[in-house]
């Protein structure tokens, strides 16, 4: 193949605005650039000078898809700084809130954004004419997730009920129980969705990622755990910046995060599942086995199956939490500001989300550092693209472009968060 440039100016079906540029020189893939051109959003600077109790309302605005993740990493980091330990019912409600976000975010990506790639449709609207039942299931799952967010978070977009120390208002047992029937139905919809995706044609493609995720002694990780990796990393959130570094690249408004020692790494469902499959209940592991999902999945095109397993798990976990819920005697632990620094990492749908806040004695935020999952996955996405393009050099240009876009969507990038992305440019010279 001659020298050429392939370009996708706006990558569709991802959260945010980005483009992709591939340079092919003498039949070899050269530069691969995933450019995020969303304007930089300066949230870390916006937080400086604000009160610690304003943080959750501000960081919830970073993302319309995963506001809970931002609120949860924020609340845990500030509580770490202030030395607050919440009661078990509050901890359970936070995990339940996260279940709602995983359900609605994963259901949206699996069916509306990713499935059209495998089935050869330009979008979910066209796909819905032939696969209406699958789309109806996704809408029902999304609604159930949103119902959880609305009850616990006050509203589904940019929720308002979480606060430092707990919640402004905690639900009654009756209110939570009212969601149980819908969650049981959602569990069935999740299993059907997983079985549907298991029949998709998956390219043979394997990558040797370093997986990074949280790991908890007992739980499939959401709100708590140490940061571990498939290469032996095992650290507390407080040591994140010792091991990881964010760097600027000239072609993107988003920072790229790498492991100081080893470079690119992968966060998200594939990493969580590879490092924590043993923390899933036996029924969920059996479901993964039934659809042929290997214990460690290294084919990013099969990440759609991992998301499906996680949706089913989130429904089960939500039902377990609702069944065992006993309301706390008080909705929140009153916070007392003090000069301190706090760290936290939680598992957003797309992977670990790191927050760090330095607070002064009156509770003013002096410094904030936020590292979203998509910033952490960008090097891996570019490496995936290089391999996909290398394997597909002889393909028709439009086919190769489509495969490259699908490769990016494998990781469900949230560009708005990362800029805090997609057009594909392929240059052949």
């Amino acid at each position, binding site marked *: 193949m001659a020298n050429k440039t392939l370009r996708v100016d706006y990558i569709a079906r991802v959260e945010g605005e980005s483009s992709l540029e591939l340079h092919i020189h003498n039949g070899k893939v050269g530069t691969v650039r995933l450019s995020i051109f969303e304007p930089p959003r300066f949230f870390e600077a916006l937080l400086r000078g604000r009160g610690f109790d304003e943080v959750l309302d501000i960081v919830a605005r970073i993302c319309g898809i995963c506001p809970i993740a931002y609120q949860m990493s924020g609340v845990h980091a500030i509580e770490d700084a202030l030395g607050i330990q919440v009661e078990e019912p509050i901890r359970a409600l936070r995990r339940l809130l996260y279940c709602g976000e995983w359900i609605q975010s994963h259901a949206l990506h699996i069916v*509306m954004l990713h499935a059209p790639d495998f089935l050869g449709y330009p979008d979910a609207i066209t796909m819905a004419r032939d696969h*209406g039942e699958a789309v109806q299931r996704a*809408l029902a799952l*999304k609604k159930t997730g949103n119902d959880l967010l609305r009850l616990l978070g006050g509203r*589904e*977009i940019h929720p308002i009920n979480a606060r430092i120390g707990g919640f402004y208002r905690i639900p009654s047992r009756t209110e939570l129980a009212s969601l149980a029937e819908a969650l049981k139905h959602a569990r069935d919809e999740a299993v059907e969705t997983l079985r549907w995706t298991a029949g998709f044609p998956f390219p043979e493609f394997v990558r040797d990622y370093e997986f990074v995720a949280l790991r908890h002694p007992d739980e499939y990780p959401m709100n708590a755990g140490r940061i571990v990796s498939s290469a032996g990393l095992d650290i507390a959130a407080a040591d994140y910046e010792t091991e990881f570094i964010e760097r600027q690249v000239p072609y993107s408004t988003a920072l790229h995060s790498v492991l100081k020692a080893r470079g690119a790494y992968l966060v998200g469902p594939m990493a969580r599942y590879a490092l924590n499959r043993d923390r899933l209940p036996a029924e969920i592991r059996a479901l993964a086995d039934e659809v042929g999902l290997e214990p460690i999945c290294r084919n990013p095109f099969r990440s759609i199956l991992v998301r499906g397993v996680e949706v089913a798990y989130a429904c089960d976990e939500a039902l377990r939490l609702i069944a065992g819920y006993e309301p706390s005697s008080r909705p929140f632990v009153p916070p007392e500001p003090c000069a301190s620094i706090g760290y936290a990492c939680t598992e957003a749908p797309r992977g670990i989300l790191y927050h760090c806040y330095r607070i002064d004695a009156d509770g003013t935020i002096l410094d904030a550092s936020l590292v979203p999952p998509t910033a952490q996955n960008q090097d891996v996405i570019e490496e995936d693209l290089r391999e996909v393009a290398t394997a597909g050099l002889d393909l028709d240009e439009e086919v190769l472009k489509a495969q490259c876009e699908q490769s990016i969507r494998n990781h469900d990038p949230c560009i708005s968060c990362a800029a805090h992305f997609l057009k594909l440019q392929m240059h052949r010279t």
Partner: protein
Amino acid sequence: MTGADRPSVLVVGVGNRDRGDDGFGPAVVRRLRGRAPSTVRILERSGDALALIEDWDGMPSVIVIDAMAPISEPGRVHRFDLTDSPLPIGFAPSSSHAFGVAETVELARSLGRLPQCLVAYLVEGEQFRIGAPLSSAIAEAVEDVADRIVSEILRKLKAKGKRLHA
């Protein structure tokens, strides 16, 4: 509730009150509360547009009010019957990542989940700044659109009444 007084018309104002002219839809439905007949269900929606499919489930007639980017004159109101055809190109924004009202309507059409009658009133906005009030031209259109919708609802209910008594 009998069949005669079950809500048969849904009016949804779509938009964010805190984003300038995007608050047009919510402003119109606030104006309609107390004016529209009690058998009309009125909703304000600022979040996930896909939820509209659930909102209008089982509702024979739906009117959606939204703001749009300016294409000719801020404050100009466009009425579209979307029952049998999508929003014309130029009125349907395309987004790389979000499902807006236009995409939601077409998804519902693919799924066979459109109401029997779906009408959209769209106003051309001037600005969508965070925290800004409605621009004067857009604010002036609120009352006019509310009047047009009340008339449209009364015509629909009258036609329904004739069918019921026929």
